């Protein structure tokens, strides 16, 4: 049997430009980066790095679940940075107001309005990164265990275990 290599006549899905990704998904990237890193300076650094990786990766990107692809890059970039920091511990730099664009004042007030515990993000940030990343992907972004396993390239059971343990630590902290 001869394989049919004829291409369908449908127009190929277009790959967005780097600028389109940044404009359209910048808020998504930033929100994820903030939940992973826990502060604006690290979130901004992470998004900058992610956008560079996105720019390099777009050449090989197959149109599909763009936010899934971005989540994978963001989470793996975050975990890469954590691993490198562990290998090369550095003194944290003081917050430089000239370098960090301050967050929108509306964010904190919105949190207060919703009566969410202010320290929830801090508790999340206190989780080990290997627990924090799957917990954020599952509970904040709503990915399934299977999707997270694919994003992080670990077995589903590992994802479930880490989420279970991460939630357990959050529960302990919230009820302490």
């Amino acid at each position, binding site marked *: 049997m001869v394989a049919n290599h004829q291409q369908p006549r449908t127009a190929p899905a277009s790959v967005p430009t780097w600028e389109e990704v940044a404009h359209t998904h910048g808020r998504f990237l930033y*929100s994820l980066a903030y*939940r992973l890193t826990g502060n604006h300076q690290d979130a901004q650094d992470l998004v900058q790095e992610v956008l*560079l990786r996105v720019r390099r990766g777009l050449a090989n990107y197959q149109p599909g679940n763009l936010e899934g692809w971005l989540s994978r890059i963001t989470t793996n970039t975050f975990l890469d*940075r954590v691993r490198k920091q562990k290998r090369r511990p550095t003194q944290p*730099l003081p917050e430089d107001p000239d370098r960090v*664009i301050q967050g929108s004042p509306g964010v904190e007030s919105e949190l207060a309005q919703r009566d969410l515990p202010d320290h929830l993000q801090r508790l999340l940030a206190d989780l080990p990164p*290997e627990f924090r990343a799957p917990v954020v992907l599952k509970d904040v972004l709503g990915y399934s265990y299977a999707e997270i396993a694919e994003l992080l390239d670990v077995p589903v*059971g590992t994802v479930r275990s880490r989420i*279970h343990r991460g939630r357990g630590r959050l529960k302990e902290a919230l009820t302490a």
Partner: protein
Amino acid sequence: MSDFDDAVDGSDLAPEEPWESDISEILAGLPDVEPPDGFISVAIDHRPLFAGRVLVGLAGAVVVVFSASFVVGVFGQRLIVPPVGALAAQHAVTRAGLFDTGGEEADTWFEVVDDDVAGDPVRTSDSLDLRATLIAEEDLRQAVYRRSGDSVSIFSQPGRVKFDDLPDGDRVMIDGVLAWVDVSRQVVVLETAASAVTIIGLTPQEVAEVVEDIPRRSSTAGFTDLVNSFTKEIGFPELD
């Protein structure tokens, strides 16, 4: 065994417990976090440093092609046209390698050398920390500095700058010395007494702060005058 050596297949894991659903629900209620005003635009504005300047090879390695051209001037001095695009790419790969910015492994034509071989163009500066010196053909040297968590590269090559052949950008006078600034304000080309100098950073502010430390052909103004001369030319607020 580390805290995370927990690879399991999941077949023997119990289903989620009720308290897990509670935690999940609380987390699901966290609002999206808006980026600060203008952040995305600033992030995009950083693009020119990389756009069209990094050639990604088959193996994912960044290959930098230097095509510096020069001619011999009437007084025997070489007239240099710094290959600003390739130099920006070189800065990107060294930045990635030295400062763990997540860049890929890179092959370049530069070789790392001892600091005393390549020299330190800035020599003394409290705000800049020399992290590496590299050298390529035609005595093209690179000094990489760390500052405020990021980095700036200074490339130097003996000769005079042939400004007419530089790509689109702006010509500005800094302390009476002609300089070329690219549209992103991240690359500056000027002359010292004996060399063509290219300064590359991620932000115009970083570049501006390095410019004031470079000993130029004529340098008579004070520190603040030098910085203000440059920042005024590129449209940033002056120092008090």
